[in-house]
């Protein structure tokens, strides 16, 4: 947009100073354009306004019920002649919440657009007043490929993200303040707002709440998991990349491919497979028994029961095993990244160091590692965030297999190996406890925000970004 002095006017100034066309624009978006003979554009704007208003009108009934989330309980009358059920016009709390939120957003969008329209109309008025040429519809369309190219580009992404991410998340956050659970499932039952009650269950304010016991433990393991899973894969990947790309290695692509095959098997296949490998009655257990490993482990007291290595069923075994399996799954990917970085290391740096008499270890510590850290360091934080939300590994490895011996954790539906996300998933899937799942989801968000605070400034920080331009 061309910035002239006129754009500095606020909406209020634009509205009061503008002519009738500008004023009318606040009611009818195309008015300003029509007055200035931009008929096509004016009509398009009017059409846009009509569609938007129609959407608002359609969702308005939901918005009206948003404060109560519905009051009409579903009632069914059996019609024995037609042999079907006759239902009353019942409220569905979830749809009320969903479309109520959408309606609010639409109204906000409408108001925002109106402000912009009025300002734009005022600007056009001023341009016309000094005898300037107003753009034709064709020119406006042309702008969409150049000056306003970002609108063209971002239309699809923003629409998609709004529809499948932003709105759903907003709705689910609001669920944390309702009593949407097993006893209040839609459409048969209604749920309603309960304020902060669900959050109280997580704190010691609610006596003997199992959630208050489980939450810090699950959170602790989530953090421990995120840090160790990320670091182990990260450094594992670097070491493996160095090994594969070492100048002594013969047939580098072959070795790389070996490790990447593990990566190409879809994760749910490889994880379900590994889980069967390491099951209490699995092939590894059979082999260990045959080779006497199981007996030996039992003798030294590493396993609690004779005859079985509880790879994925005992807390002190399951956690390291899950980390190890995650290592197996995650290292090839990190190796690929590290390979890319290693290739880019300026040769002169390492050569110079070697000529100065540095040994391999010194070169690694002084040059290679700092270089890699410098470049991929920020991805460590986003990797941790990804691991906080790493659902697949834990869920696929512990589902139906791991039973906790911690009675209070069990009472909250959690286990020692659960991450916040898997706990959340169990609560929704197994217990339909959507309200607590949302509370936990919000807390995951807080944890991740804390972790990301560091990179946040890096990603959007001006200095760093513009430095390349």
């Amino acid at each position: 947009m061309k910035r002239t002095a006129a754009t500095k006017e606020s909406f209020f100034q634009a509205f009061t100073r503008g002519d009738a066309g500008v004023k009318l624009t606040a009611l009818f978006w195309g008015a300003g354009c029509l007055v200035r003979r931009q008929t096509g554009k004016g009509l398009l704007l009017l059409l846009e306004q009509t569609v938007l208003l129609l959407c608002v009108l359609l969702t308005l009934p939901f918005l009206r019920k948003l404060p109560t989330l519905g009051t009409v309980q579903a009632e069914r009358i059996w019609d024995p002649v037609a042999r079907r059920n006759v239902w009353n016009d019942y409220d569905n709390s979830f749809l009320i919440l969903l479309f109520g939120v959408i309606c609010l957003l639409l109204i906000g969008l409408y108001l925002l657009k109106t402000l912009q329209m009025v300002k734009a109309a005022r600007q056009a008025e001023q341009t016309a007043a000094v005898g300037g040429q107003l753009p034709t519809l064709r020119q406006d369309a042309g702008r969409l490929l150049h000056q306003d190219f970002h609108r063209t580009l971002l239309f699809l992404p923003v629409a998609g993200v709004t529809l499948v991410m932003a709105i759903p998340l907003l709705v689910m956050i609001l669920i944390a303040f309702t009593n949407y659970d097993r006893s209040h499932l839609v459409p048969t039952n209604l749920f309603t707002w309960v304020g902060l009650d669900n959050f109280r269950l997580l704190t010691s304010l609610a006596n003997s709440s199992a959630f208050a016991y489980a939450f810090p433990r699950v959170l602790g393991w989530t953090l421990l998991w995120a840090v160790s899973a990320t670091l182990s894969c990260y450094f594992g990947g670097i070491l493996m990349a160095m090994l594969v790309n070492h100048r002594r290695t013969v047939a580098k692509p072959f070795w790389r491919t070996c490790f990447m095959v593990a990566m190409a098997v879809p994760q749910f296949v490889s994880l379900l497979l590994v889980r069967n490998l390491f099951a209490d009655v699995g092939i590894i257990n059979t082999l260990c028994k045959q080779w006497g490993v199981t007996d030996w482990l039992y003798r030294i007291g590493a396993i609690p029961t004779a005859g079985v290595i509880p790879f994925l069923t005992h807390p002190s075994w399951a956690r390291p095993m899950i980390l190890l399996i995650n290592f197996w799954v995650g290292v090839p990917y990190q190796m690929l990244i590290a390979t890319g970085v290693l290739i880019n290391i300026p040769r002169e740096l390492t050569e110079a160091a070697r000529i100065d008499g540095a040994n391999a270890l010194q070169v690694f510590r002084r040059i290679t590692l700092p270089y890699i850290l410098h470049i991929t360091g920020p991805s460590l934080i986003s990797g941790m965030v990804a691991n906080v939300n790493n659902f697949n590994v834990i869920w696929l490895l512990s589902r139906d297999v791991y039973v906790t011996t911690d009675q209070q954790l069990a009472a909250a539906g959690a286990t020692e190996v659960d991450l916040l996300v898997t706990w959340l998933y169990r609560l929704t899937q197994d217990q339909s406890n959507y309200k607590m799942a949302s509370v936990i989801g919000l807390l995951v968000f807080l944890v991740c925000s804390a972790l990301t605070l560091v990179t946040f400034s890096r990603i959007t920080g001006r200095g760093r970004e513009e430095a390349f331009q």
Partner: protein
Amino acid sequence: MKRFAALLLCLTVLGGCSKDAAENPAAVPLRVWVGDQADIPWMEQVLREFRAAHPDRSYDIRIGVQNEGDAAKVVLTDVEAAADVFTFADDQLNSLLIGGALMPVTEGADAVRSANTPESVEAATGPDGQLYAYPATADNGYFLFYNSALISPADATTLEGLLDRAAQNGKKVAFPMTNAWYLYSFFRGAGLQMQLREDGVTNRCTWNATDAPIPGVKVLEALLKLAAHPGFVDADSDAFVAGLKDGSIIAGVSGTWNAAVAAQAWGDDYAAAKLPTYQAADQAVQMASFSGFKLVGVNAYSEHVGDAMDLAAFMTAHDAQVDRFRLRRQGPSNIAALSDPQIQAEPAIAAIIAQAPYADVQRVGPKYWDAAAALGKIIVSGNPDNQDLQTLLDNCVAGITAPADQ
């Protein structure tokens, strides 16, 4: 660009309103969920007969598979989109009722009541006394499998006898101790209670009773002793099957779903019986069990409830249940079908019938499972932290009886 997002949403709303407009009024569209992939051939046969029995109506019926154990979960996620007719295990009746998913049997309920065993009818009846589902099988409980080559019928009447025989042979007796469904057996057998309260959600539990004829602690002591026996192995269904195949398990507690594997593994030595007794507080305690029924429910939100009820009634009637036995070896709940000598001769079904007097209809609130499973795991691990047994039971009972949604 956000205006387009708005437009999209708008279309979404409009689409939602008009989606049911185009329907062929001639054919009645119905969706039916069976519990297992392997049930499909049976269901197809039933559908052929169903169509033949209703020549005046045309149906467009699609068969889907939804595991009976998870049916309630899936149905309740969105009742309005769930199948018109679905199969579920009887323990989910209450969840489904709270979610309003089940249509009461408004036509021919008395016929259903009189045709099926009283236990199966009880399992399909809601707290208000109405019949909410059609009993389809009466074989979803558990009983004892044993290899009669190594174990005599007399040994099979006591758990101690079974374990000793197994230990002598270097073999195992499998019991899924970490599965709450099975753990119930010991406590209930000893006279301790665990059942659903009137609210339909929370449980009442007396497993920690100190004043009962056999106090909870005595049961727990007995279980710890059993779990430490060299002949004992805690085995879930997978482990049981694996053990059958490699011959390491010579007896175990499981259900009809593993009968075929056992019959195959042991051949003529395959035998089944009611659950044995076990020693607690110096007396022999008959193990109880949950009886289990597969029920067929009609979705109350179905557009074609009448036709759905016809189908549900048809697929649980005498003939369909007999077919079900023939094709799937599943034991009928239909009294007439049950009297068929061929069905009675089936060891697994005979065992179910023998266990019936000690079996309870499963009415359990959601908090039972994790809490009881944790206790089972502690037992199998041999109480690793040496906690006080009464405390263990108290914790377990606190978990079982906790309010449902906290």
